């Protein structure tokens, strides 16, 4: 029982972690908390579903299309919308991202994307049994993708010029400009990568939760919670935060009496407040988190 709950929790937590990675990436370079992340991920996933069901694209190609849609959406959101409001306070831009999310919901409705059959599983083979732990193949896929995305992020931020430039921009924007870094372009890259990551999360969540307008919002709220738990500026923290969150949530709903088990989300958020009291910068947050300009 315990092992099963932990494994399932880790699978859910991986999804929160992937989603949180996208959020934090955008937050670190642009200082915008993208409240539209859930809707944007949902939109990319809908596009994949549309291509798969109505246009007969192979499933993997459709998933690739979701990734591309996410990236393009990031470019459109940054260049086409937020750039025009660049003199607005960052907190106002938070609300703007919420608005963009709602616009995307409306577009999805209008395009008739909502009235769809459930999103297919990529791997739907027989579940694996390890001892008495049941592991769906989809869970394995989620673990694999989470690992791959984390590894990719690590490589990009550690070794590539654009990745280091993203970190540099988040630490000192003015100095980044003085190095010849086009900080606007770095912001656009972050949006593209962040929403591409969101699209991945969306496609992994969709088969589990049955896609509808609100389905990604809950994942996003959990992702924000994961990000807070991890320290909000730390990418590894986002993944760790997501995993911890998923496991705790699952243990709570597994062991608590059925009357209060549905309160797992409430419990998790209460716990996060406690964590922040003890560790104000989260589990893996940098102490200088607020200090960069």
């Amino acid at each position: 029982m315990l092992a099963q709950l932990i494994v399932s929790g880790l699978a859910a937590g991986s999804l929160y972690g992937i989603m949180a990675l996208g959020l934090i990436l955008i937050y670190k370079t642009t200082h915008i908390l993208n409240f539209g992340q859930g809707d944007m991920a949902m939109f990319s996933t809908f596009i994949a579903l549309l291509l798969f069901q109505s246009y007969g694209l192979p499933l993997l190609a459709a998933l690739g299309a979701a990734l591309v849609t996410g990236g393009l959406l990031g470019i459109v959101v940054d260049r086409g919308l937020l750039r025009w409001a660049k003199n607005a306070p960052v907190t106002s831009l938070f609300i703007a991202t919420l608005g963009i999310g709602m616009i995307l919901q409306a577009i999805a409705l209008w395009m008739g994307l909502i009235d769809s059959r459930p999103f297919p599983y990529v791997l739907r083979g027989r579940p694996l049994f390890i001892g008495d732990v049941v592991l769906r193949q989809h869970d394995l896929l989620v673990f694999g993708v989470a690992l791959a995305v984390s590894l990719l992020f690590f490589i990009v931020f550690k070794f590539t010029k654009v990745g280091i430039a993203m970190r540099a921009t988040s630490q000192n924007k003015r100095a980044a400009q003085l190095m010849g870094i086009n900080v606007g372009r770095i912001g656009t890259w972050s949006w593209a990568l962040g929403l591409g990551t969101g699209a991945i999360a969306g496609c992994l969540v969709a088969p589990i939760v049955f896609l509808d307008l609100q389905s990604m919002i809950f994942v996003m709220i959990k992702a924000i919670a994961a990000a807070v738990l991890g320290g909000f500026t730390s990418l590894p923290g986002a993944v760790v935060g997501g995993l911890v969150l998923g496991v705790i949530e699952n243990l709570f709903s597994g062991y608590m009496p059925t009357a209060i088990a549905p309160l797992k989300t409430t419990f998790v958020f209460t716990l996060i407040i406690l964590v922040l009291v003890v560790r104000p910068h989260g589990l893996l947050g940098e102490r200088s988190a607020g200090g960069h300009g």
Partner: protein
Amino acid sequence: MLRFEGVNTFYGPIHALKGVSFHVDKGALVAVLGANGAGKTTLMNTTSGLVRARSGQIFLEGRRIERLPPDRIVRLGITQVPEGRQLFPDLSVVENLRMGAYIRRNGAALRRDMSEVFERFPALNGRGRQIAGTLSGGEQQMLAIGRALMARPRVLLLDEPSLGLSPLLVRQLFDRLAALSHEGITMIVAEQNAYLSLEVASQGIVLETGRVALMGSSDELRRTDRVRQLYLGTKGKADPRPDDTGGDVPDAKRGSTD
């Protein structure tokens, strides 16, 4: 090499640079002197494109640059070492240097320049993987200069490089700047330390409340009363805000276009 013609810069209602005109010869080291709030940093940031001039022109080898964004200006060959160093505190020393070379392609030349920085600034040697924020003040300043050199600038702007350094380190710093100047890099050094900067500079200009109050060769400037005053008491004191009436300029040469 670099020419300023009637440059006016504002911060909101504050008129921070008032018709600044001067020019810098290729290979020259020009000291920009003046108290706090005289407009030194504004001059640097206007040149780098971080602040846009409201009027006037800045030419780099005949090409107008005052409307270009900062990254374009860096690509044209002007790099700034900003006041307070402004390193990327959570990046390693090597990563900071790599960001200094952001406009360049990765390759052998870049690696060679990086090892040259380590030779030039032995204090950084063996610390490539150290996080920049944990270096001492002097080491940070060396890294800031090394980072700027990684761009292979033709014009190097240094804003208050001696700030916060011990007298011994300041001495070393100016020796380094003199050596760089001998290698042919054109430099503009904004400094409150008039004594040392005029020692290494060939020319100087004195900014007062946003205007060029004096300019001339270092020797000429050293003999003026106004610069003597800067040597002595007034250094480091809070200065009138830059929107105060400008300095009157009776003696020595007035700022001119050429």
